[in-house]
């Protein structure tokens, strides 16, 4: 009974039932395949969505409802199965194969997840705008992610641990250790996601659950050996592959899986040097990256002095390493609750402003270097109607003068002077912590 329900449950978790998955699979453009697509397939395990949750229910215990329903349905199916197949006393072979599915699904998933940290894309170094945003103006999830991002070596270590757990799961002999490691890491991630509102607690918990299911058969013998101090036998059954062709199919399967989800995916990762957070490849205003004081600010030719309460007058301005200009004004904006933006279109890369308050506004820009124009558009999905066209002048390397039409159709004239702030975050650090990428 227990076995039968676990069997159906693992099928539910590991086999995608959503037709969208398959339509997505067939619409992949293989000629321009990038890692997010393949990594998404690899790590996209989880319970079928029996019910759709309201946004406000996605944080508490209710968010696990689909897993629970899957288990209840598995249990009911197991009851029927037991009635139909009363005589069977054991399902060794079937159990072996269901664990194989669980192992490979969990392994490829966690390897794909781990690669994002091993090649540190998931948490990048903070943007200059982040460096100049007060701690209390970030939502907790942002602080959690950025906290990892400031220590790129640590992120690599975390990625390595996840990939390592996955690789241990790919081999029968190291499976138990891999499953224990998977359970420990992913259980911690699930709890941290609850604490920080990270949003992937159910997904992480599903991985942890698979780890536990894989490890479960070994727990009695471990308990017997270590705690009771009795001799113990491993609770392991391998079907004999006496047929040569079964053996070859097994090797073929292993080799194909590893080629695609371990080696080819890794190749896709290292081939990509852009990551997925910031639009590094777009043209930018050259040699402008940095933070600027606003020395002079005119609206319709009237000088506005600095005030922390002014809703139009910029308090500072920041040119990022990519095509984003941010400035701080005392004006409210709709916060983006999401964390995504998996697109190469710069305006769609929403990671940098999502979940950051405090009055900093993020504008995506396109540059016309001949006319010396910046075409700016607010990145915030709720405020995309805010657009500016500003002419730039650079009297010297530390001064930029912007003039043109702002988001309220007023003419503005802004003198920016570079502020050479030396960030303590990067001071006083041992040389090994100097950063790897970019």
């Amino acid at each position, binding site marked *: 009974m227990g076995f039968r329900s676990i069997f159906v449950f693992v099928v539910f978790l590991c086999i995608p039932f959503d037709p969208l998955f398959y339509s997505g699979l067939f619409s992949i453009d293989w000629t321009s395949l990038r890692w997010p697509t393949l990594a998404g397939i690899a790590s996209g395990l989880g319970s079928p969505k029996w019910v759709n949750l309201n*946004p*406000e229910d996605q944080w508490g215990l209710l968010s696990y409802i689909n897993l629970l329903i899957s288990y209840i349905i598995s249990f009911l199916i197991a009851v029927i199965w037991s009635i139909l197949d009363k005589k069977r006393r054991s399902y060794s072979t079937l159990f072996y194969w269901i664990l194989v599915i669980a192992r490979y699904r969990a392994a490829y998933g966690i390897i794909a997840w781990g690669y994002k940290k091993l090649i540190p894309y998931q948490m990048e170094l*903070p943007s200059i705008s*982040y*460096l*100049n*945003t*007060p*701690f*209390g*103006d*970030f*939502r*907790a999830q942002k*602080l*959690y992610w*950025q*906290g990892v991002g*400031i*220590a790129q*070596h*640590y992120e690599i*270590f975390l990625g390595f641990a996840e990939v390592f757990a996955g690789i241990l799961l790919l081999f029968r*002999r*190291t499976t*138990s*250790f891999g499953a224990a*490691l998977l359970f*420990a890491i992913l259980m911690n991630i699930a*709890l941290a996601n609850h*604490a*920080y*509102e990270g*949003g992937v607690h159910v997904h992480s918990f599903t991985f942890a659950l698979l780890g536990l299911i894989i490890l479960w058969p070994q727990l009695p*013998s*471990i308990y017997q*050996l*270590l705690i009771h101090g009795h*001799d*113990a036998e*491993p609770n*392991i059954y391998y079907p004999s592959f006496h047929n040569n062709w079964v053996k070859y199919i097994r090797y073929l399967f292993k080799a194909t899986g590893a080629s695609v989800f371990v080696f080819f995916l890794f190749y896709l990762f290292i081939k990509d040097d852009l990551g997925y957070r910031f639009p590094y490849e777009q043209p930018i205003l050259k040699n402008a990256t940095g933070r600027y004081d606003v020395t002079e600010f005119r609206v319709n030719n009237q000088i506005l*002095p*600095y005030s*922390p309460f002014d809703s139009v007058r910029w308090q500072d301005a920041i040119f990022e390493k990519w095509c984003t200009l941010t400035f701080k004004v005392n004006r*409210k*904006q*709709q*916060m983006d*609750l999401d964390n995504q933006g998996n697109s190469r279109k710069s305006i769609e890369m929403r990671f940098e402003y999502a*979940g950051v*308050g*405090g009055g900093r506004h993020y504008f995506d820009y396109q540059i016309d270097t001949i006319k010396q124009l910046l075409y700016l558009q607010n990145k915030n999905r709720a405020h995309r109607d805010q657009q500016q066209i500003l002419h730039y002048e650079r009297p010297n390397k530390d001064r930029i003068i912007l003039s043109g039409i702002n988001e309220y159709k007023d003419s503005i004239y802004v003198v920016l002077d570079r502020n050479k702030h030396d*960030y*303590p*975050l990067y*001071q*006083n650090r*041992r040389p090994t*912590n100097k950063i790897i990428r970019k």
Partner: protein
Amino acid sequence: MARTKSWLLIHILKMSNSEISPSTAWKQWEIDIFRFTFLFIILLSFPLLDYKFYTTLFSTEINVRSILDLTKYLPQYITEIALPKWGIGSFANWGVSTIVAIILATVWRFYDKNKREYNKLYYWLRVIVRYRLAIGLIAYGFVKFFPLQVPYPSLSNLHTNYGDFYAWKIYYHTLGIVPKYESFLGFVEIAASVLLVFRKTSTIGAGIIIGFLGNVVIVNFAYDIGDHVYSSYLLLLALLVFAYDAPRLYSLLIKQQKTLANKYIPLLSSKTKHVRTILKVAFALFALTFGLLAFRNYTGNPYLLPKNPGLSGAYGFYDVKHFVFNGDTIPYSLTDPNRWQNVVFEKWSTLSLKIARPIKIDPTNGDEWHDNDLDRNYELAGTGGRHYFSYSADTVNHTLHLKNKNKYYKAEKLELSYSFPNDSTIILSGYTEKKDTIYALLERINKRYMLFEGRRKPVKL
């Protein structure tokens, strides 16, 4: 003789088991490694030559922080101050212990040539290591379970730019904003510590804590936290405990074969059984006492935060609406080196100012026991952006005496009188230690923080 023999770890055969016991004789390399490990651990764990430890032990004030310090003890054959804080040099005392252990092990080998096994001594070494590790873990477990080690960021720190912290401080604050998760981490340490005290569960406890400490060690290096030597020491102890059963787990799970259990169970004389009971009771008492001290400190005045309450009704973040310096009104400015930009009154007797003036940051980690609020520097350790003043208030004459908490600016003092024209306004006026006069009109800003709004419901900020 019979009595001494009964000391030996006796080897129990199971009737069903036809494969008879493994030989009790150890291989020569095992004996050599054991002698070295034994000496190395003893040298690294006990204050053998360190008289200073005993003077601190008996002169120390009993509070959660000082006992935590005692549990963190590592012998200092070379004093810590003489060592580099980072890099391989910070492990110099491990080097000394290694060299001395090699020398002593060689001598031991010479005098104890015929010894074929050290089962008994290994058992006692494991006892020492298990308890030493358990004590280290329970102390750090409790100061996390009751979130003392990493407190919630102060209001001033919430008003400090991300880039103005040192990396270790960001790590601390990132943990500090989730006290429940911090408690969970403490719970893991406490649970592992209890598992380690019982011989049968010690391997499980060690297995759990290897993962935990492995992460702690890496974090200490990655964020320059500074406890890398001590956390590495605890990790070493955990690995040593785990090593005992590791071959059996390897055989069961990786080689996947029938595995013989550990047949050596210490048959203890009634006298040593007492020792065991005493150890367990002593550990339980220590854990209970420390837990209570931690709880009391947490509910009273957490040791990293100043303990005197702040000026009543003043807690909050203030805009400096009007500012006069030596008689001249200075308008809002982000660049003027005298103009206060904003002010924070903490719940405790600290006031912090934002001024466009460079700051030499307090380089310590603020993690020491100080009775005096002026010296409780966690709130400014590793933190730039703002100037921190500790104050005492004279509520009769309505004056505040402020002293800069940063040791680099000790001389900075302010004498200010205060008044509350209404609930959200404070007027401060007075003079600095350089006799510059200051007048500041403060208005409280009821700011909403993204940190508290979270991401569960739509919000406009």
